[in-house]
């Protein structure tokens, strides 16, 4: 509940702090904001994320009072703020350029807003000192803005906008001017200060990593419209559109027509003769199709070696078949990260899961042992795919893709399958997976902890697959021009219908 897990947007009794009601903003013929309605709750850290020109800054300037909506109303604590000029609003803004007054010292900058309120001098001094302490700027109080570093300037701007104790603090690309290393530290500092002061923050940014790190909820914007509002993990794991999937992180998108899979019917995994399973190929003691802990790091949660690594080679289908009938109601299947988050973090809040986890049983002793190099033992295993889901015909001469979960579709509907690179395995031999496609390695981007492989399929489609570099370089055997297989499970992708 609220004091344990912060999710006011799920509580119907919670009154939102900010309400946008059918707000539109036009500049001449250009529509910057197109009839948007959404709520922001008290104490939220709300991020407006989008490319430049998507209207996020206009949204913020309407909150600050520098622009007025052309249509619709914006309510702050239930009151329409349209008639209130910016200097009377209980909203403060931290500007992208910081807008520190160059002729005033750090102390005077922070005191500027307080003096406008005609507070007594001792109160102002006390509040300024408090702010200086909060932002660790005590030593620089008498300096002028040009006498301090960029990171310090950023903190002065923050202290100045927080000094008046606004109901709502707007941050316009607050970290844009800082270098990468400083930016990371500052993100955590921002979260810390937000928590300490209990102020509602609305941040505008084009940096998805920044939004994902700091925000409680992220609104992804495109051309004056909010495409999706959700928590960072939902945005990443369950994007509601190709736009969001593409904007947040890396993704490979397959477009095609969907066909509902007939219950009970076995879809041949590989249709083309070229990809027929042969015993030799199936003999893969070390298929590197794993979801790596590094994938977790991608969205800013510390990596954890014990994260469940789902071996996706086979599907002894006991729990899965049980889960299958209930599937459409459940939405996307949690992946390893989701499960790990649940077990490690959310279980303490919510209690154990009530729905059935489609998790594999622990590997048997026999499976733990290194498999003998006997082709016979492996070849007996055929790929058994659970019922339900859809197949997606996406290219001539390529096998259809199978997605076991996702929204309900009609046969023949146009859909897209979005796949994160870390959910795609890559191996030199044909893996025993629900989806496996053959291709050639074109490029390898070495990112330190991970390598991204750009694999070109036979029909020219490029797929990005990621592997954790858990082994030393000498043991990584996939290299340029290699014929490889990319594969993923039936639940790795997200089916997008819009």
């Amino acid at each position, binding site marked *: 509940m609220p004091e344990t897990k912060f999710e006011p947007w799920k509580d119907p009794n919670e009154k939102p702090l900010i309400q946008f009601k059918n707000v539109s903003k036009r500049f001449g013929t250009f529509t910057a904001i197109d009839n948007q309605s959404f709520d922001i709750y008290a104490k939220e850290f709300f991020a407006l994320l989008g490319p430049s020109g998507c209207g996020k800054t206009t949204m913020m300037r309407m909150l600050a009072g*520098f622009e007025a909506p052309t249509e619709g109303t914006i309510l702050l604590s239930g009151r329409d703020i349209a008639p209130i000029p*910016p*200097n009377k609003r209980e909203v*403060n803004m931290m500007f992208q350029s910081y807008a520190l*007054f*160059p002729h005033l010292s750090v102390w005077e900058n922070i005191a500027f*807003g307080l003096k406008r309120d005609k507070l007594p001098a001792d109160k102002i001094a006390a509040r300024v000192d408090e702010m200086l302490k909060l932002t660790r700027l005590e030593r620089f109080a008498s300096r002028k803005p040009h006498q301090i570093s*960029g990171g310090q300037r950023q903190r002065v701007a923050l202290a*100045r906008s927080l000094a*008046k104790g606004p109901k709502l603090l707007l941050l316009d690309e607050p970290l844009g001017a800082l270098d990468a290393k400083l930016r990371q530290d500052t993100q955590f500092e921002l979260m810390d200060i937000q928590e300490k002061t209990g102020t509602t923050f609305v941040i505008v940014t084009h940096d998805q990593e920044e939004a994902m790190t700091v925000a409680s909820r992220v609104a992804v914007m495109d051309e004056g419209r909010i495409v999706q509002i959700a928590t960072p993990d939902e945005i990443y794991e369950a994007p509601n559109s190709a736009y969001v999937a593409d904007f947040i992180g890396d993704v490979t998108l397959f477009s095609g027509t969907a066909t509902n899979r007939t219950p009970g019917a076995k879809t041949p995994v590989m249709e083309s003769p070229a990809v027929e399973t042969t015993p030799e190929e199936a003999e893969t003691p070390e298929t590197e199709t794993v979801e790596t802990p590094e994938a977790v790091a991608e969205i800013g949660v510390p990596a954890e070696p014990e994260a469940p690594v789902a071996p996706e080679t086979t599907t002894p289908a006991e729990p899965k078949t049980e889960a299958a009938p209930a599937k459409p109601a459940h939405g996307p299947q949690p992946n390893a990260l989701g499960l790990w988050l649940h077990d490690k973090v959310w279980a303490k809040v919510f209690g154990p899961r009530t729905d059935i986890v489609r998790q594999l049983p622990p590997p048997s002793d026999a499976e733990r042992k290194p498999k003998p190099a006997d082709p016979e033992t492996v070849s007996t295993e055929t790929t058994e795919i659970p019922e339900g889901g859809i197949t997606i015909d996406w290219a001539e001469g390529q096998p259809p893709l199978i997605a076991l979960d996702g929204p309900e579709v009609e046969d023949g509907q146009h859909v897209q399958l979005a796949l994160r690179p870390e959910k795609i395995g890559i191996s030199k031999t044909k893996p025993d997976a629900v989806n496996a496609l053959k291709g050639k390695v074109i490029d390898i981007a070495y990112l330190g902890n991970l390598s991204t492989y750009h694999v070109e399929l036979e029909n020219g489609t490029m797929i990005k697959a990621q592997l954790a570099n858990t082994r030393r370089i000498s043991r990584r055997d996939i290299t340029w021009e290699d014929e490889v297989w990319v594969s993923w499970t039936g639940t790795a992708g997200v089916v997008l219908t819009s």
Partner: protein
Amino acid sequence: MRRLTWFNTTSLTLGFAFLYLPMIILVIYSFNASKLVTVWAGFSTRWYGELLQNQAFLDAAWVTLQVAVVSSTIATVLGTMAAYVLVRAGRFWGRTLFSGMIYAPLVMPEVITGLSLLLLFIGIGLDRGVLTIILAHTTFSMCFVSVVVSSRLISFDRSLEEAALDLGCSPFSAFRLVTLPIIAPAVISGWLLAFTLSLDDLVIASFTAGPSATTLPIKIWSSIRLGVSPEINALSTILIAIVTIGVISASLVSKRQLMRQEADEKAAVRAEA
């Protein structure tokens, strides 16, 4: 690394010699003892003494100074307002006409400006004197001020004003507390420009000055039309000296400020590292 080639050195040397030799000669010969200006007859400060005895020159100088101070001050206020309107007021009725009236006097031949103002003053029956010169000088120098100030306002970070509003300032106090202190250097140099333009002006003043008021340039004009005079040499030397000292000290001050700022910024970067 950039070096001066012989060609560049030559053109700079010749060019600056051309610009400065006439004035240097003027200054040297102002200390000539002889009444014949072109014949050197030994060092003397005689003409400075005579200049200071010449009541007509002193009166004209006093009038000029009054006109320059008053007109440049009014011009600075009006010009800053006009610049603010040009840069910040957005669209309003007659904006094109307004900006046209700001820029036109910059390129307008002085004879036309002077003539038109004179005809106006006669038309409304205003006696020509100090007041009419002040009005005329204010009008053309406010345009120069507004050009100087508006170029500073354009580069001014608008979000500074928005920050002031955001922190509770009324638009007027935002201007007073934030904008004005920041654009102050441009306003000051606008004032200086207006001041020197007024000190310097001959043509417009000739049209708008009446018999009751004569400015220094008019006085100089009437004496040099007849040829070179040693007293004018002395007067010129004094004016050149004032301007030179003023410009050099102003540039030294701004250079010092710039250097201090750079040093501060370097120190800030070092402190961070």
